């Protein structure tokens, strides 16, 4: 009798355990269905971040890629950069942005080689290749002005983006060359700060 009762008790207990387990599993299932990971807040953050980053991406037009060879000086000036012809003067070379033929003037020890100067003489202060490129650009812009009926005026603006260690001799040559080629107003690109 005792044995039988004991047996019955054990069966009851097993049954209860099974019930509890089922309940637990059901509970787990329910929780999984409603809870999930707390992704909503993360999504909010990411969406906002994405918008801001896309916005900063959109005014890429006036950004300049800096590198070891091109470190801009700092200045207190707050004038905005404009869409103009850009001339890059890095430690190794002088390049005009969007030159169709990809020409460049090499710099040796931050100096323009005499052979690259007009008539092979540094006293002219005119860099021959640069003059060719800039004259092409000026002609193109003047054509554009004519074609647009004077709407897109040729202002003779040029932006010089130069490394801060470049000696004035080279800057002077670049400015002189651009002024001869029709770009009389010079803008120097700088980083805001002091």
């Amino acid at each position, binding site marked *: 009798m005792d044995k039988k009762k004991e047996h019955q008790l054990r069966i009851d207990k097993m049954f209860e355990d099974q019930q509890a387990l089922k309940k637990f599993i059901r509970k787990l299932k329910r929780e999984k269905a409603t809870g999930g990971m707390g992704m909503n807040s993360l999504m909010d953050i990411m969406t906002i971040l*994405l918008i801001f980053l896309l916005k900063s991406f959109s005014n890429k037009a006036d950004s300049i890629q800096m590198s070891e060879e091109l470190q801009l000086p700092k200045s207190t000036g707050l004038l905005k950069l404009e869409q103009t012809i850009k001339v890059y003067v890095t430690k190794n070379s002088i390049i005009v942005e969007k030159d169709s033929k990809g020409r460049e003037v090499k710099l040796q020890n931050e100096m323009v080689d005499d052979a690259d100067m007009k008539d092979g003489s540094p006293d002219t202060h005119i860099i021959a290749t640069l003059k060719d490129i800039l004259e092409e650009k000026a002609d193109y812009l003047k054509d554009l002005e004519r074609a647009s009926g004077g709407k897109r005026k040729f202002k003779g603006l040029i932006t010089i983006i130069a490394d801060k*260690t470049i000696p*004035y001799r080279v800057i002077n040559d670049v400015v002189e060359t651009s*002024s001869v080629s029709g770009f*009389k107003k010079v803008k*120097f*690109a*700088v980083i805001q700060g002091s």
Partner: protein
Amino acid sequence: MASKSTAKRKFAPKPAPELDLKPIMNLMVVLIPMLLYSASFIKFASVNATKASGQGKPKELDPDDKPKPPLKLMVKITEDSFIIEAAALLDEEGMIASPAEDGSAQAVELFTIDIDEAKAEDRLNLLRAEYKEKKRPIPESLLESTKKVYSYDFLQLNTKIGIIKKAVKNGDAQAGLEKGESQFDKADQIVIAAQGNIPYELLIKVMDTVRCKMLTPAQKEARKEEIAEKKAKEGKTKIRNRNKYGCILDLKALGDEDANTYYYDVILNSKLIE
């Protein structure tokens, strides 16, 4: 009992179906690092200058009018000093400028400001601290160029330019000219000439210096306090205190007695100094 529970189950509001956000998340996880990588957090600006033309067009003048002598204000940057020249005579106290009587308009040297290498020490310490943090040795060229640039006395250059500006204005007032008129031609132009080996950074610094009034260290402190006060009062985080050329506005508030924030057009000389 059983029927009730089925009814309950039947009409119980179903949990809203979850959106499958996995693809969007995947996209964002890729996009955000990409955009962060390519975003630039540096603000660029520009500094304007004009090239001095060798032979400028002479202005149309009345035949009776005597042409005004040009001021020919010039800052020369040499390896060891700034030299300020102008075609004006200063009186003994340096308060009144007048054109030379014979009208020769010969530029004379007014001030020379020598470099002082001790001046660069503060800046060099900053640089050293910065590179110590990065745990990298300072590039020799950077050290040298920093030393070269910051040995110059920009504050004094600014002060001297201010003295000339004031003297010209005093001279105009004494000559009985109306406001805005000057005894000199091109009184608001300053020419910068430099030696060939002057680094570009120094040229930009000089252009910044001569363009407008600089603050002395004491004024800088006062300015900071003033801005902090304004922020606390008005709750603004951004206070505009410079114009587009980077010149400080409203110097009168700082008790500057010659509170004219001056502006010069910067002209680059067409020749190098030998």
